[in-house]
């Protein structure tokens, strides 16, 4: 595990990508810090961090795109998987490397609240709890993008898909507000999700009957629900949307709270996707 971690870090910083990404992150961090804190006069650095969450949407997919996709393309996964290391160690080694790369610019930014303190007033506690929350949020997003990288052997696809997924998660809260109007929209969205699920099942099992069966059964169930308890659909929809809004819980830090809930949420997302990554690697050996 340590060997993989070391190799990842070395290869990241021996190329241009590592420095470029770290530099870009620091550039935006500095810009927003200047705008929000130094000029805007806010004493909480978390506000600046929240304004450039959007930078993460690009930074994290680019950071993670190589992770497993490149190993698979150059067949170096063959070395890892035939060495006496477990899949857990491989996944953790890679994940910890990505986390460290994300932590480097964040560690530099950890100096900013001190600068504020030096220049005048700073809400150190809120700022540092914000940085911790930000790190956890990034850790969850990194796990998601690493999982996407394990699904493909094309870095570009991994980056684009990662960006797409993070963008949807980012936009979900505003999408959600569109749908509170009625349960008809919720029904529509659930039907689309059902259709996608049925198509995936159909492709996986190569059985049209199974896919059609799933869709029909789901359709009937949803219609009954819609007819009798339309309120349920809307609530379920809101809850699911809430759970998928990866960047929303961070708002609590912006509001000055050290939110254990948010940290647990991020840790669970990271754990889930690390598990899925391991499963993907394991599954690849079986077909």
């Amino acid at each position, binding site marked *: 595990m340590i060997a993989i971690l070391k190799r990842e870090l070395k290869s990241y910083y021996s190329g241009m990508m590592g420095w470029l990404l770290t530099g870009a992150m620091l550039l935006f961090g500095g810009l927003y810090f200047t705008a929000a804190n130094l000029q805007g006069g806010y004493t909480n650095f978390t506000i600046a961090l929240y304004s450039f969450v959007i930078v993460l949407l690009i930074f994290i997919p680019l950071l993670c795109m190589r992770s497993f996709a490149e190993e698979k393309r150059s067949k170096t996964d063959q070395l890892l998987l035939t060495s*006496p290391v477990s899949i857990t160690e491989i996944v953790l080694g890679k994940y910890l490397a990505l986390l460290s790369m994300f932590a480097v610019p964040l560690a530099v930014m950890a100096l900013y609240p001190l600068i504020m303190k030096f220049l005048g007033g700073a809400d150190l506690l809120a700022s540092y709890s914000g940085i911790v929350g930000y790190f956890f949020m990034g850790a969850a997003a990194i796990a998601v993008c690493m999982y996407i990288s394990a699904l493909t052997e094309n870095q570009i696809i991994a980056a684009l898909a990662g960006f797409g997924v993070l963008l949807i998660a980012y936009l979900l809260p505003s999408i959600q507000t569109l749908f509170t109007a009625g349960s008809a929209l919720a029904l529509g969205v659930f039907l689309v999700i059902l259709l996608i699920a049925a198509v995936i099942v159909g492709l996986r099992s190569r059985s049209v009957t199974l896919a059609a069966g799933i869709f029909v059964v789901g359709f009937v169930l949803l219609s009954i629900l819609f007819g009798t308890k339309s309120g349920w659909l809307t609530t379920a929809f809101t809850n699911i949307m809430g759970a998928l809004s990866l960047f929303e819980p961070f708002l609590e830090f912006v509001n000055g709270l050290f939110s254990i809930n948010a940290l647990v949420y991020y840790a669970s997302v990271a754990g889930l996707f690390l598990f899925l990554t391991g499963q993907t690697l394991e599954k690849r050996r*079986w077909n």
Partner: protein
Amino acid sequence: MIQVEHLTKRYGGHLAVDDISFTVEEGTIYGLLGPNGAGKSTTMNILTGYISASDGKVTIDGHDVLEEASAAKACVGYLPEQPPLYVDMTPLEYLNFVAELKKVKRADRKPQIDYAMQRTGLAGMENRLIKNLSKGYRQRVGFAAALLGNPKVIILDEPIVGLDPAQVIEIRNLIKELGQQHTVILSSHILSEVSALCDKVLIIANGKLVAQGTPEELSEQLTGDVTLQITALGEAQKVVAAVNSVQGVKQTVLEQEQNGETSVSVTVEQGKDLRAAISAALAMAECPVLALNTVSMTLEDVFLQITSQTEESDAEEELQEPVDEQQEPADTQAHEEAQE
């Protein structure tokens, strides 16, 4: 050392490896021989734990590759068909990484890496980037990586492909030397390579193990009758009659008659040298011999014949009752004899 029992691998509806069983003994060089797509790489990938078998069991030095994966993998050094190299590293960095990955103790790393580099002739290349190395040198880096950790078994997938003739000789010698201390399994689709290097040969075709034994055993079992290619001056009828009059000639086939020259191909009983007798007979018949060649059936031909036969007999076998694995080599031989 390695026990393979009823190994089967399915890719969707396609059977890549079909119920293969064999045992690998310690300190022996094994050759896995088969045409492209026969299932050699799949078999090796299963042995090394890169992919899992659909059915069957592999134990390496007593460790099941599924249940005690790490212990089994620690016994194996693997060089896949395409060496798994990180091209942005130098050979030295790469070997350090592999040694660490294989949990070689810190104190042992440098001597082991030095030894591996010296054995594979990498001296002077250790600080170049792997992406700037030629295919032959990349192959050597992969080879050196397989040697690290002093594994009991070394598995090499097509180790000779892509090397220049001088390198082929070097690598061949290296494999022979390694065979004295390690168990080596290598795959190849080139028969001469395998028969020159290996103590034991396993022939795989269409995912099935069709023959196994030492190269001598195989060639003894499998080489058929000797064929002579003769060109003589004279009419076809006269030439054929003269050849047929020699005792030991099984069959004479007329191949060509042109400008008064006749070419025939003559099948002679196994183990007999009838060249002198035939040319004397032709001289008696006043048909001077212009050319005479021995076309003995090489292992290569035998190999081609066996492997193509399995493809043909596949359809038949499905109709018949399932054939026992052990009988299969004998079975194909029977086919072969029947054809001749």
